[in-house]
């Protein structure tokens, strides 16, 4: 049986645990055993340790990766920042053995060791490469019934490509997320601002209005070109922007549309038959219409 270490990060277990529920549901249905990474921490996020010290960052990431190594599993994450931070730290240590050595001195003080053998997957690449589109299709209970999906891959899922061992063939023309949406019966067309950043993250903290405007600029183009019925993100931070922040913008009268949003793990959980109250139970933009359409779309 396949096994994988589920790396939760911060936003997924604490802010949007419906994504955690969905990841568990989907992996379970796909016959992948989930190994808990007991005592794992924040990746660490780019705004904290990486902004303070390179070795400290690598030590923080290595703490998490060492937990997976002890359990002899690779890691899967649904958060782009976690995916980026862990992989970049892994890459730095691989390229600079002296950093890895320093890190192991630090970990050694508490009886831990980082070997550097763990692979860190993001959710959709794991589905795409390890499970495969054909296998995925066999596990689907409902079809998306031609729902038009506006996809948001997420910056960290694509770049810096050097740090990633799995990726789209062309990191400026990604197709994997869209292929998955289409494999489960949706339509996921290309649109001109598909690569743009959602603005969530440091920019949102430093200049909220500007970062919201950045998202609106991106999304209004998307609506004009493909008129999506559902946003699908490859990253949990992007989901916070597409769902939670969208709801706030709507309330504040900053937008005149209301388009539900899900993380790709939630999308797959729904088409595999998960209870919506759990799989998308914390969505803020109303999503009932999409659920009805999915359930009627066998």
């Amino acid at each position: 049986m396949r096994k994988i270490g589920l790396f939760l990060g911060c936003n997924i277990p604490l802010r949007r645990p419906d994504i955690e529920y969905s990841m568990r549901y989907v992996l379970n249905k796909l016959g992948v055993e989930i190994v808990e990474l007991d005592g794992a921490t924040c990746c660490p996020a780019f705004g904290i340790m990486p902004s303070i010290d390179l070795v400290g960052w690598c030590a923080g990431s290595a703490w998490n990766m060492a937990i997976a190594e002890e359990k002899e599993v690779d890691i899967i994450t649904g958060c782009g920042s976690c995916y980026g931070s862990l992989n970049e730290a892994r890459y730095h240590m691989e390229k600079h053995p002296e950093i890895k050595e320093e890190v192991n001195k630090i970990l050694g003080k508490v009886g831990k060791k980082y070997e550097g053998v763990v692979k860190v997957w993001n959710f959709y690449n794991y589905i795409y490469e390890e499970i495969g589109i054909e296998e995925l299709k066999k596990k689907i209970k409902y079809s998306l019934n031609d729902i038009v999906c506006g996809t948001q891959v997420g910056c960290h899922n694509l770049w810096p490509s050097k740090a990633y061992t799995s990726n789209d063939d062309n990191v400026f023309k990604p197709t994997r997320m869209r292929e998955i949406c289409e494999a489960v019966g949706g339509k996921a067309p290309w649109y001109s601002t598909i690569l743009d950043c959602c603005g969530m993250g440091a920019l949102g903290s430093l200049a909220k209005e500007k970062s919201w405007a950045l998202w609106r600029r991106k999304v209004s183009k998307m609506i004009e070109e493909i008129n999506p019925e559902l946003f699908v993100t490859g990253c949990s931070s992007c989901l916070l922007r597409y769902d939670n922040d969208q709801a706030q913008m709507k309330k504040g009268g900053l937008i005149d549309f209301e388009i539900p949003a899900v993380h790709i793990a939630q999308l797959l959980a729904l088409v595999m038959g998960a209870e919506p109250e759990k799989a998308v139970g914390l969505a803020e933009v109303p999503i009932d219409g999409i659920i009805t359409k999915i359930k009627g779309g066998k």
Partner: protein
Amino acid sequence: METGRETNVIKLDEEFFKEFEKELQEAGMSIKDLRSCIQCGKCAGTCPMALAGLEFFIKKIVHAATLGLREIFLDDSSVWGCQSCNRCVEICPMEIKPYELIQAIRRVSFREYAMPSNTIDGLQNYYKLGHAVVVKGYENRRKKVGLPELPPTALGNEEMRKKFQEMLKNTVLAEVAPFPLD
């Protein structure tokens, strides 16, 4: 070839920016790389900070760094608005890795207490709870979707959390954390 044109050259005082270069180098930015920037602007063309309208975006940041303008970074908080998206790293024709410069500048600024308050809060949460971002009410949200109130992370595992804190005491946090590590 004789063009009949004279090129304007600014003479920089080496001493002036050597100190800053040394700091950046120690903070993880290769100065040799930095100096090969040709100011082509490709990084800016793809940078979300620039697209969002921050005036002091990546190309200017690289330029200011090559000129040794250290004080600018202590006054202007733009480097803290960087999305860590790595578009600039992916696209730079000189392989300068501009994002690594952002991180290096942040590391230098942090030691001068020129950082936003959410960096301190995040760091403190990271040390105390194992998570940088802890939004209140998580127990109820988890329960609502059928998950245990506490996740299996350091937050829900005291023994590992203590060990993690011990580990962090052996990092640079012991010297630079703006809060006590106890």
